[in-house]
């Protein structure tokens, strides 16, 4: 337990009649990048607010770094936490640097840390400009800088790449990798599943306030029945050769395409299928293997509202 950055134990939260979370338990290990996904209304934001101590749980307990976040030591705990809310909004009348200094003061981080941090997120040139004139991407960068104040042990990021351009997204994950390599624990939500699937160590899929699935992406792939898809392009006129090879093979489905076939099989059958294909090299022009993505997994769990990116 002491090794966990976060322990959520049997937590229930209801707002009036609505059960936002229902007896949810999970833990996040120290140094881990942990993904939290689910469609709108699945309980992600509620869970975030509970973990940050912004709202109390109706039932159950949450421990952050082994301590209660709303307990007597809440200041010490919160000084070690960074948080980037979804749609970071701040005081438009202040400059970027002033905003950062304000939060640095509140967290007792030396003001000298602010300017290097702004450079790190690429805002050095705009440091003394008022936030009013910032673009959405610049605001998000400022929010990220704010979340990194004081090199926190634990960083909560809610839809952090919202509004960032591709370069911004790249910078963001580069900095995040740096931060994680220094030992920080990161909890991240995103709608853009393709973006986080290669980066998170573990993830949880929330569905109506409960955990629909959790584990590493590899575990989730094994746990689910989603097939690997092997797309085979055939040499002209050889489509039927492949048809014959896979016809009647148990556990394998295939579909004829214009210039070849698409073979779907369970992950553990993949090698057997590839073996067959290598024996047919005179008929095969090209092979592309597509593993089930986080998005496929997520859609498999009923999260139909997710946007494809």
């Amino acid at each position, binding site marked *: 337990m002491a090794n966990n950055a976060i322990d959520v134990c049997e937590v229930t939260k209801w707002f009036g009649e609505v059960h936002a979370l229902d007896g949810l338990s999970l833990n996040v290990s120290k140094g881990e990048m942990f993904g939290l996904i689910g469609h709108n209304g699945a309980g992600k934001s509620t869970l975030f607010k509970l973990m940050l101590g912004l709202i109390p749980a109706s039932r159950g307990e949450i421990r952050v770094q082994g301590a209660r976040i709303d307990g007597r030591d809440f200041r*010490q705990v919160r000084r070690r936490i960074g948080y980037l809310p979804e749609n970071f909004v701040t005081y438009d009348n202040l400059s970027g640097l002033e905003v950062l200094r304000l939060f640095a*003061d*509140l*967290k007792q981080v030396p003001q000298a840390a602010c300017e290097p941090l702004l450079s790190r997120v690429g805002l050095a040139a705009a440091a003394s400009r008022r936030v009013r004139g910032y673009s959405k991407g610049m605001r998000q960068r400022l929010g990220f800088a*704010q979340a990194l104040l004081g090199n926190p042990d634990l960083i909560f990021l809610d839809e952090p790449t919202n509004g960032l351009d591709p370069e911004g997204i790249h910078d963001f994950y580069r900095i995040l990798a740096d931060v994680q390599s220094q030992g920080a624990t990161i909890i991240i939500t995103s709608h853009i599943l393709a973006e986080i699937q290669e980066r998170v160590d573990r993830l949880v899929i929330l569905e109506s306030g409960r955990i629909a699935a959790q584990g590493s992406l590899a575990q989730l792939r094994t746990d689910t029945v989603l097939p690997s898809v092997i797309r085979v392009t055939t040499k002209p006129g050889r489509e039927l050769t492949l048809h014959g090879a896979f016809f009647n093979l148990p556990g394998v489905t295939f579909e004829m395409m214009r210039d070849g076939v698409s073979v779907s099989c369970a992950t553990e059958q993949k090698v057997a299928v590839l073996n067959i294909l290598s024996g047919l090299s005179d008929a095969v022009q090209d092979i592309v293997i597509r593993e089930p993505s986080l998005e496929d997994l997520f859609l498999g769990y009923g999260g139909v509202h997710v946007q494809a990116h």
Partner: protein
Amino acid sequence: MSKRIEWAQVRIIAVKEFRERIRNLWVLVVALIFAIFSLAIAYFGSAQQGSVGFHGIDVTITSLVSLVIYLVPLIALILGYDAIVGEKERGSLELLLSMPITRFEILLGKYLGLAAALSASTMLGFGGSLLPLIPQLGINDLYHYAGFVFSAILMGMAFLSLSLFVSVLAQDRMRASGVAIGLWFFFVLVFDLLLMGALVASQGKLGSTLFAGILMLNPADIFRLLNIFNSEQVKNMYGLATVVPEGLTNPGVLIGILLGWITVPFVFAHWRFK
């Protein structure tokens, strides 16, 4: 929850609020409004008596009291209604709440910062407008005028406290501003009218103690009493001394009640800021 107050956190929020009001020229603009109105009133206030010009500090203050009762509560309510609900609506409150700071510290910091802005405007505006008259004033006059400005600030802080309470309760900024304006109408326009009506309807049977007690339910009336009873000349003019019980003409008591008007809405605001 008994979390020890960290005054450093209160100060950070207060300084931020004050600085924002300085920077967006709020303090300066409000001070100018106060100065222009008070200069006009000090000069033309006695026009009804057939002459214009300065006629002594007591008369000037009495004219200014009515002005202050209209303006200061309005400015204070406008200043405070947005404090919490505005940040809630824009979305910046959530991040603030995730900082190592308690809700009490946020609320108190906001209150103190805004109160400082209001006090600065009031002192600059009413103090500045006195400058042209300085050569004609004695030390007693200045002392008297300082008391008037001080009581105006106290009344403003009472209305600021009320508006902070509104800001905590309101679901959105629109409603908060509506309620704030409503409070102004009630305390500045309707309250005295109702009290007059009750007095007349009861054909004077409304005891003077009860009457004075009801006056204490309105910070604007407390302010009026504070300044009217400071001047013998005005007191005799109005014949008020006979209406209000001795105890409630004591400035110390009146100031104490005003302080209560500052504290109680704030305590309620904190209670509801969960």
